C-alpha cells in the first residue's frame, strides 16, 4: 500500500532523521580538530566550548521561560475582560464565550484584508 503521508511525517523515518542529525552535530564538533579557534578569550577556545555553551544556554533560557511563563501567562482574553467591565457595552457579545475564543477567533473573514 502506498503511504500518502509526506516522508517527514512517517514514523519509521524518525530514527533516521535523528541519526543524520546526530552525525551532523558530531561532524561540526569534530571539525575543531582541523580548525584552530582563536576567539580571543581563553575559555572560548576549549574543545566543543561553543557546542556545550549553545546547548546549555538554550536549556537555561527554556527552563527560565517555563518558570516565568507560570507567573506571567494569562488567558487570551485577559485584557478584553478588563475592557468589557469598564466600558463598551457593545463588546458584551464577545464576552459571552471568552474561553472558546481560541482558534476560531482568528478565523478568516473577521479581517477585512483576508482572502475572500
Amino acid at each position: 500500500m502506498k503511504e500518502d503521508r509526506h516522508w517527514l511525517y512517517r514514523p519509521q523515518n524518525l530514527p533516521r532523521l535523528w541519526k543524520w542529525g546526530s552525525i551532523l552535530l558530531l561532524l561540526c564538533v569534530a571539525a575543531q580538530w582541523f580548525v584552530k579557534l582563536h576567539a580571543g578569550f581563553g575559555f572560548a577556545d576549549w574543545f566543543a566550548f561553543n557546542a556545550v555553551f549553545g546547548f546549555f544556554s538554550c536549556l537555561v533560557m527554556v527552563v527560565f521561560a517555563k518558570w516565568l511563563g507560570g507567573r506571567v501567562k494569562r488567558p487570551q482574553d485577559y485584557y478584553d475582560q478588563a475592557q468589557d467591565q469598564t466600558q463598551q457595552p457593545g463588546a458584551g457579545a464577545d464576552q459571552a464565550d471568552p474561553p472558546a475564543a481560541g482558534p476560531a477567533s482568528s478565523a478568516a473573514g473577521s479581517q477585512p484584508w483576508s482572502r475572500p
Partner: protein
Amino acid sequence: MSLLSSPALPLILASVLLPCTARSWRLVVLLGAPLLSLALIWSWPEGAVVNARFLDYQLTLLKSDALSRIFGTIFTIMTFAGAWYGCAQARTVELSAAFVYAGAALGVVFAGDLLSLFIFWEVMALASTTVIWSAGTPASWRASMRYLLMHLFGGVVLMVGVVAWARYSVDLSFASMTQALSAGGGRSFAAWAILAGFLINAGAPPLSAWLPDAYPEASPSGTVFLSAFTTKTAVYVLLRGFPGAEILIWVGLFMACYGIIYALLENDIRRILAYSIINQVGFMVTGIGIGTPLALNGAAAHAFAHIIYKALLLMSAGSVLYMTGRRKCSDLGGLFQSMPVTATCGIIGALSISAFPLTSGFISKSMIAQAAVNQQLAGAWLLLAAASAGVFLHAGIKFPWFVFFQKDSGLRPPDPPLNMTIPMVGYAAACLLLGIFPGSLYRILPFAVDYVPYTGAHVVSQLQLLLFAGLAFFVLLPLMKRTLTISLDFDWFYRRLPVLLWAQLGPPVVGLWSGVVRKSEMMQIRGGEYFRRYYGQRGMARALSTGGLGLTVLSVFAGVLLFYYLR
C-alpha cells in the same frame, strides 16, 4: 541641491497621489516613488547640506553622509518591496500612510538638526498609528490607540530633551551627545531625556511592550512596513547621537535576552517575530554601546540585514495568515506541503536571523561579537553568544517548525498571489547574496571595514553554537508546549492597573462627584433666585442701596491700590 531633492518628497507625494490613481497605474506609483527616492539619495554628493533659518536657530533640513545613506538606502528598498507585497491586498489608506511613514523615516535619517528630526519623528508616530489602525479590526483600533499613547509619550520626552538641549547647548545640530551624558547640569539632563525618547522607539525596557502589542494587529503588509522603520530609525539616531554610551551595552543585552524569553512563551506567529525584533535591535544597541568603528559598522550592517530578513519572515508569516486566516502556532503545521515557496522563503529568513553562515545575518552580527572580543568584554560576548543561540531557538527553528512542519494541521492552502510571492523571493535572494558577497554591504558602511567574516574559526564556532541550540530545541520540545495564553508585560501597568484601581476607587470617587454635582445644582437654584431678586426684569440692582454700591466700589478700589503697591 535644494529641498526639492529631498528623498522624502517622492514618497510623500506618492502617498497623496495614491488615492486618486487609477488601479492600473497604482503599481507604477507604488514602485516608482521609492526608486526615485533611492536615486535622489545616491545622486547627492557626500556631505551635502540644505540649511534654513527658523526663529533664532540655524536648521539643517537635509544632510547626507555615509551613515544617513545606508539607512536611507535600506528604507527605500523596504518601501519598494513592502508596497509590492501589499499592492493588491492592502487598503489604499494603509499604503498612503505607509508611504508617509517611510517618507518621515527618511526625513529623520537625513535631518541635520534636532528640531527637524523631532518633527519627522512625530509624523512617523502618527503615520505608523494609521498603518496599524487601517487593518480595520476592533483589536487593531485598540492596539493603535495604545501604540499612539506610548509614542506620543516618547515624543514628549524627546521634546523636553530637545528644548533643554536648545537652552543649554550652543546649537541644535544633531551630532554625538555621548559626552554630554556625563557632563552634569542642564546639558546632561537634555542628553538623558533625548536618549530616553530615542530608546522608547527602539523598544527598550521597560517600555517595550508596545511593539509586540501593536505590530501583530496590523494587516499582513502593514506589519511588514512597521517592522522596518520605527525601531531602525531609533537605531540610526542612537548610532549618530550616542555612540559608545556604555549604558547602551547593558540595555542592548537585556533587550536581546528579553526578546528571546518572551518569544518562547508566545503562541501568535507574528508576535513571536515582533519579540524577535526587540531581540535583534538589542544586538544593534549593544554594538552602539561598544562604540568602536567595528561595532558601529556592525550595528549599521545588522540594521540593514535585519530589515531584509525580518521583512521576509513577516511576509512569510503574513502570507500564511492571509491564506489560512490563522495566526497561532497551535492552529498551524504541515504547510510546507502546499506552500513550498512561502516555506522556503520563511526558512531562508529564519536562517538569516539566526546568522547561519552564507546568510546576511552572519556577516553583520559577527562584527558586533568581534567588537566585544576586541574590547575584551567577556560578559557581553557570552551573553551575545547565548542570545545568538536563543535566536535560533525562538525564531530560527520555532517559527518555521510550528508553522510549516510539526503536526500536520490538514490545511492545504496554496502559495499566495504573485505580488506577494515575488518580493518574498527577491528578499530571500538578497539574504543569500549579502551572505555570500558581504563586500557589497561592507562598501557602504560608515567606517572603513577591516573584517573578514568567513574564517574557519568563525564558521565552525557559529555552526557548533547554532546546531547544538537546534538539538536543544528538539530535546526540550515537550517543555515548549503551545498554550492559548498571552504573557503579562510592563503594559500591564497601563492596561490593567488603571482598571483595577478604578474598581477600588471608582465607587467613592463617583459618590463624591455626584455629591458635588448635587450641591452645585442646589447652588445654581439658589443663585438663580438671588439674581432674579436683584437683577430681574425691572432693571439692574434695583434693591441695592446707593450706599451699599458705593461701599462695594470703594473696597474694590482699595484692593486694586493695595495690590498695585505691594506688587
